[in-house]
C-alpha cells in the first residue's frame, strides 16, 4: 500500500516512467491483436528486435561521424525514433510482401531476421561509444529517466496510432479476417493493409524506444493471448487485451519499484503468470 501511495503521488520522481509504461501497456495490445489474428505472432517477436537494431544503427551512424552528434536528449530521442521507425517499416514491408503472396511467412525466415537483428545490434553497440549510453538499459527494459518531452511525444504518437485503430477497426478486421471477400467487394485492400502495417510499425518503434524490445513483444502478444481465452466478441477482445496490458504495466512497475527489479522483465513475468492463471481457470471452468 505504501508503494502504491508513493507511485500515485503527483510528485513521484518516476512519474513519467509509470505513465510511459502505462501508455505502452494500453496501446501495444491493440496492435498485437492484429498480429495474433493474422497469425503473424512471430513477426511480433522479430519487429521489436529489428526496431532496436534501427536505434543501434542510428547511433552507429552518429558514432561514425555520418550523422551530426545529438546535443541533447530530445535530439537523441528523435534520432533513435527515426532509426527505429525506418528499420521497422522496412521490415514490415518485406514481411507484408511475403504474406500477400499467400505464403504465411515461414518462421525460419522471420527467425533469421530476429537473430540477425539481435546480433547486429550488439555489434553496433560494442564499437560505438555514443550508442551504448542509455541503449543497454533500454534493451533490458529499464524505464528510468523519461523526460516530460519524451512522455508527451510518446503519448502523442500512441494516441495517433490508437485512434485510427478504433475508428477504422471494421475495415482492418475485414481485410484481416476475410481478404478475399474484401477483394470481391472492391475494397482497397492494399491501402488498408498498408495503413494497418504502418500503425503496427509506428507503435512498435515507439514502444521499443520507451520500454525495449522484450517488453514490447510481451505487451504485443501476451495480453491478447490472455484475453482470447475469455472474450466472446471482437470488441471485448480488444478492450480486455488493452486493460490487461495497462493494469499489468502499472502493477509490474509497482512490484519492480518495491523489490528493486527491472521493470520490463517484471511486467513480462507478471503477464506470463496471468496467462498461466487464465489457462488454469479455463481448464477448471
Amino acid at each position, binding site marked *: 500500500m505504501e508503494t502504491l501511495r508513493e507511485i500515485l503521488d503527483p510528485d513521484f520522481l518516476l512519474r513519467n516512467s509509470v505513465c510511459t509504461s502505462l501508455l505502452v501497456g494500453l496501446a501495444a495490445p491493440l496492435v498485437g491483436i492484429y498480429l495474433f489474428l493474422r497469425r503473424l505472432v512471430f513477426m511480433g517477436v522479430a519487429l521489436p528486435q529489428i526496431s532496436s537494431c534501427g536505434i543501434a544503427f542510428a547511433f552507429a551512424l552518429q558514432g561514425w561521424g555520418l550523422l551530426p552528434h545529438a546535443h541533447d536528449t530530445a535530439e537523441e530521442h528523435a534520432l533513435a525514433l527515426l532509426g527505429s521507425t525506418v528499420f521497422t517499416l522496412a521490415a514490415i514491408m518485406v514481411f507484408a510482401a511475403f504474406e500477400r503472396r499467400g505464403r504465411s511467412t515461414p518462421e525460419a525466415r522471420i527467425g533469421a531476421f530476429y537473430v540477425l537483428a539481435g546480433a547486429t545490434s550488439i555489434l553496433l553497440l560494442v564499437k560505438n561509444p555514443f550508442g551504448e549510453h542509455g541503449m543497454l538499459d533500454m534493451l533490458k527494459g529499464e524505464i528510468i529517466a523519461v523526460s516530460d518531452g519524451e512522455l508527451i511525444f510518446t503519448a502523442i504518437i500512441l494516441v495517433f496510432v490508437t485512434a485510427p485503430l478504433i475508428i477504422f477497426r*471494421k475495415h482492418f478486421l475485414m481485410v484481416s479476417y*476475410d481478404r*478475399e*471477400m474484401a*477483394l470481391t*467487394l472492391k475494397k482497397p485492400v492494399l491501402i488498408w493493409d498498408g495503413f494497418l502495417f504502418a500503425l503496427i510499425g509506428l507503435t512498435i518503434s515507439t514502444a521499443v524506444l520507451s520500454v525495449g524490445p522484450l517488453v514490447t513483444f510481451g505487451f504485443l502478444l501476451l495480453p491478447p493471448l490472455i484475453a*482470447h481465452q475469455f472474450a466472446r466478441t471482437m470488441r471485448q477482445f480488444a478492450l480486455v487485451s488493452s486493460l490487461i496490458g495497462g493494469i499489468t504495466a502499472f502493477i509490474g512497475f509497482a512490484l519492480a519499484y518495491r523489490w528493486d527489479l527491472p521493470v520490463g522483465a517484471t511486467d513480462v513475468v507478471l503477464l506470463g503468470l496471468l496467462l498461466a492463471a487464465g489457462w488454469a481457470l479455463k481448464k477448471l471452468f
Partner: protein
Amino acid sequence: MHADLLLQLDNVTAGYPRQVVLQSVTLSVQRNTFTALLGPNGSGKTTLLKTLVGIIPPLQGKLIWNGQVRVGYVPQRDVLDSIFLLSGLEVVQMVTQSEKQWALQCLQSTGTADLARKQFSQLSGGQKQRVLIARALATRPDFLVLDEPTAGIDPTAAAAIMELLARIHATGLAILMVSHDVALMRRNAQRVVWLHHGKVTEGPAAEMLSRERVLEIFELDLG
C-alpha cells in the same frame, strides 16, 4: 453484348504468377440462370471462380461484364478462421457496416436469424454455410457465386442449402456454383460448365450431365 448475358470471358488465362491453371477460356454466364461449374479435383474450378469474382486477376484475356454487376461471393466455409470472435450477425455486418436491420433480414431469409448471437466458429457446417449465404445476400448482389457450399455436410443440410439457393434463384438472381456433386447439380442446374484437362465445355445441364459425359470426364469405366 447480348442483353441475356451477364458476363463473358474472352480468351482468359487464369492462374497465378508462376502457374497457369487454365488457358484460353471462353465462356458466358447468362442472366437468371443456375450454372454449375464442375470438374475433377485440380481442374481449376476454384481458380476460375476466384478469377470471376476478382480475387485473382486474369493473366491474359478479358472479363466483360454487362453493365454494373454486383457479385455476392460465398467462399468455402473454412476460409473464416475460428480465431476471430465473431457472431453470426457480425459476420454478415462485416459487409453491411452499419445496416444492422438489413443484416438481420438477410439472416432471416436464410433461416439463420436465431444464430445472430451465436459464435460463428461454433456453428455446424450447414449453419455456417447459410450464414455465409446471408452475408453474400447482404451485398445486394445481381450474381451469386458459391464455392462448394455443400461439401463436407450431411445430405439433409445439403438439401436445405440447395432448397435455399433454389428460392434465391427464383427471385431472379443468377447463380454460379462450384460443386463435385453431379447428382445434386442434375436436379438444380440449368447450365453446366465442365473443366477437364485444361479444356472448358459448356451447355445445357441435360446434355452436359448425361451418363456418358460424366463417365468420360471422370475417366470411369463401368465395364
